[in-house]
């Protein structure tokens, strides 16, 4: 998995999160998905399923426990994709 793949993951996350929220706020890697974007748990879980399909990986939802920011989620996806 290359750096460009990481950028692809980050871009996808920012795009999808933007679509899921009604805010005009800029979504950056440091954006907190829960406190700043008010993404509810079901929307986040559905987003994870979409990411799984896009990158053909399995992302256990229990791995999300320590994930707060977009960067942390991108790191997790990148790590799982690299190991697959």
């Amino acid at each position, binding site marked *: 998995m290359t750096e460009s793949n990481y950028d692809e993951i980050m871009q996808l996350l920012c795009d999808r999160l933007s679509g899921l929220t009604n805010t005009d706020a800029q979504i950056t890697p440091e954006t907190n998905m829960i406190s700043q974007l008010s993404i*509810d*748990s*079901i*929307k986040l*879980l*559905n987003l*994870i*399923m979409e990411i*799984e*399909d896009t990158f*053909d*990986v*399995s*992302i*256990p*939802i*229990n*791995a999300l426990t320590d994930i707060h920011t977009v960067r942390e989620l991108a790191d997790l996806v990148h790590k799982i994709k690299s190991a697959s």
Partner: protein
Amino acid sequence: MNLLEKLDAAAAARKSLLPNGVGAFGIPIEEVYSATEARIGDRRVLLLGTNNYLGLTFAPECIRAAHEAIDKEGTGTTGSRMANGSYFGHRALEREFADFYQCSSGIVFTTGYQANLGTISGLVGPGDTVLIDGDSHASIYDGCVLSGADIIRFKHNDMVDMEKRLRRLGDRVETTLIIAEGIYSMLGDQAPLAEIVKLKNAYNCILLLDEAHSLGVLGETGQGLVEKTGLLKEVDFITGTFSKSLCSIGGFCVSNHPQLEQLRYISHPYIFTASPSPATIASTRAALVLLSKGSDLRKQLWSNCTQLYSQLEETGYLLGPDPGPVIAAILDTPQQALQLWQSLLEHNIYVNLILPPAAPEGKSLVRCSVNAAHTTEQIKYVGDTFSKLYNMI
């Protein structure tokens, strides 16, 4: 934000959904008159917000059995079965559940919630995988979290999606537990069990089916979806609750796998809790007899379900895909759902209000639970009232 401020924030969010102090959640019920009527405030209301599917809450056989058990064994067991021992009733009910499902063994839990928590956390652990339906009940999610296993969701009742996720697991399917429900509590739809079994066998996984809402409702003797589909022998573990068709409180797991017995020694939700009271066990045993012989009750229940589902559908309400005892009107916004819920209460009908994120797909639900004790006239009144209120929303 400190711990208490976080709770204040959650309370504020809840209040913003329920203006004017509307107490839609945990509504005070002052008196219960029967399986279908109670008093809320100064209103005598029709109960369509309970899970009393066979209408057995006042069955004389169950009440008598509970009274006798209290007289003989007292009000409570005062501790866990591991420490305080298993009463005759606990063991008898486990045997009766195993026999009812033609299984070799059964375990009784103190609540239905704990039945899922205890079974799932006993069957899987860190390094294993659970593959669960996206609309699974909270007890399934919580059981999975407690287990420490990796949790993968598939789209609700979508078998193409489920297979895709099974395939991705590769060799890990060997230690994967698939979990589905006989009837899903939000929309009242049923799992495509034949297709799930096919995939379970193809990938050589273990399957757990929660029959909480389908016990007493589906199948000739009320076993649930396993009986309706003729797939009893294909399901590895069946869990369920006493708090719906059996009208008490508790839960169970049955299986033909002898390893089920090991759960008694490793499952914390079984070990570290007080065992069900003698009265609870006794009324459940009596109710299980009525349930298994209750084909007339099921016939009446399904007649009531079809009557209400058809009328709501004809009126124009968007409903869950399958007619059944759980009939949910699906609404676009929480405000619409709240308005309908309040108006129904003003017409002396109590139903459940379900708001996001508890409801699927960001929708809101006004959910009716039909039971066998509802009269045709009561069901007609509920249907007519829904029709009258349709244009309001």
